[in-house]
């Protein structure tokens, strides 16, 4: 197997806090690895180590066969990084931002200019290319930042939460752009908090929590592991919540979890909409009023609930 990113036993500590506790990764060339996890899980630390910004306390890593710790400058020639916060210079125009990066990759004056124009076209920024970047929308800045990572057409690309903070439309646009890139054969390591994003973009997913890889596999494998859809019901009378739980239990693949405070119950189901209709019919026949009901797909919360027994809320720090 031709491996583009190889990571073994990566450890990083900050004082008493262990940010990374022995992470191993392998990304075959031309594939996309999604690092999925809540804030503070260690995703960004992994990216920072692999892009030579941070030195690990233990472990080793190679990018495109080059040792990250021994030959950082050689590694930098082979990678593109787009960080969590669009690192564009807002006083420079889009063109100037990209031209500057080209010059710093030593592409030469002429080639840097050409490449900047090419990328502005490719990322639908041609019209805005000569405006200062501070006039750009959030989505445009992210696209410009991503374009910056691609100036030297690196074989390996790192995107750290490329859509965090974007509105849904910009997010979908960004996904389209990333999918095009990947189709061109770039190896991509992507971090995200969104299961849906990893699902759309990644070939393989590694779930990170407390600096450890707690699960890995394709999106389908992970979903199978955490179960399918969830039925959610909110009853009007909190006193009858347990009664409602007992009524719907036969419809689920596992017993429901009730939340007294929110008057709600959540239960994994196999049938989706069909189970929802049956549940509502059952409750209505017993005269049990329902305020809200729905079927939803598993979220990152569910992944964590299943894999670690805690929610992302608690882990987010």
């Amino acid at each position: 197997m031709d491996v583009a990113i190889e990571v073994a036993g990566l450890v990083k500590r900050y004082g008493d806090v262990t940010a990374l506790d022995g992470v191993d990764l392998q990304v075959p060339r031309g594939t996309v690895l999604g690092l999925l996890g809540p804030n503070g899980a260690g995703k960004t630390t992994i990216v920072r180590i692999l892009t030579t910004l941070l030195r690990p306390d233990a472990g080793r890593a190679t990018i495109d066969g080059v040792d990250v710790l021994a030959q950082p400058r050689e590694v930098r020639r082979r990678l593109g990084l787009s960080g969590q916060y669009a690192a564009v210079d807002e006083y420079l125009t889009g063109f100037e931002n990209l031209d500057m990066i080209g010059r710093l990759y030593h592409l030469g004056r002429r080639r840097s200019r050409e490449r900047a124009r090419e990328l502005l076209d490719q990322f639908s920024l041609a019209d805005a290319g000569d405006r200062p970047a501070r006039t750009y929308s959030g989505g445009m800045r992210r696209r410009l930042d991503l374009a910056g990572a691609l100036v030297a057409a690196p074989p390996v690309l790192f995107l750290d939460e490329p859509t965090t903070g974007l509105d849904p439309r910009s997010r979908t646009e960004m996904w389209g752009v990333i999918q095009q890139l990947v189709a061109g054969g770039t190896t991509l390591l992507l971090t995200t908090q969104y299961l849906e994003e990893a699902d759309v973009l990644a070939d393989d997913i590694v779930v990170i929590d407390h600096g450890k890889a707690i699960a890995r596999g394709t999106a389908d494998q992970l979903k199978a592991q955490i179960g399918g859809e969830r039925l959610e019901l909110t009853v009007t009378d909190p006193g009858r919540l347990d009664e409602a739980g007992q009524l719907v239990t036969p419809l689920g693949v596992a017993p429901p979890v009730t939340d007294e405070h929110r008057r709600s119950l959540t239960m994994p189901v196999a049938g989706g909409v069909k189970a929802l209709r049956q549940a509502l019919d059952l409750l209505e026949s017993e005269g049990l009023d329902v305020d809200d009901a729905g079927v939803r797909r598993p979220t990152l919360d569910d992944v964590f609930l299943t894999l670690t027994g805690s929610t992302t809320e608690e882990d987010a720090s």
Partner: protein
Amino acid sequence: MSTLDVVNDAAVVAKRNLIKIKRVPDLLVFTTLSPIMFVLLFAYVFGGAIDPSGGGAAYREFLIAGIFAQTVVFGATNTGAGLAEDVKKGIIDRFRSLPMAPSAVLTGRTLSDVVNNVIVLVVMSITGLLVGWRINTGPLEALWGFVLLLIFAYAVSWIMAWLGLLIPSPEVINNASFIVIFPLTFVANTFVPLDTLPGPLRVFAEWNPVSSVTQAARELFGNPDPNPAATASGAWSLQHPQLYTLIWAVAVVAVFAPLASAQYRRAASR
């Protein structure tokens, strides 16, 4: 990495910083407005009290070199604030992930701040000429006076570069540098003759490099001291202000350039 690459990278970064001056002219307007305000305040509010006989004219001659020195020190905070902002916005991360010369970000920044200072000095010189300041020496001496001020400012830039990377918050940098820079530029011969200062303060002022660069500039511009007897100082630093300023500048760069570079390699956004 060839020397050519190192020079190219620093030039690219410096150009990027200079574009900001062009795009946000307000920044330059305000960095020059405050020294103009200082010239006018000191010249006309204190001038009459300090130098009643001449109606403040002699004090104005005396004052300008001091304001020059103060302004270039204040200008150095831009170096720190600019770097702090770059760290905060992740631009330093982007630079550090590129196969560029690591030194380029800092040399590019400090060099572009020299250009900034040249512009500021030109504007202030014109203001000075308008309020009666004159260069009473030859062009070469005057030029050396300005170059010395720029060398001094360049050295202070490196201290601020280190601070800017150490404390990556532009707001904190601005406030923190204020409490250092104010005493540094006031406990000196910039605005008042040294003999008015009490003992320990006077010793501090005599060895304060702001005093020596001011003294050197005054001598090189031929701006007479209105009260030579009172300001005469036996301190070596003021007997040899040009040499002392140069030694100080070289020493500061020798200490703070490596410190700032080490901090740059560690710099992490947030």
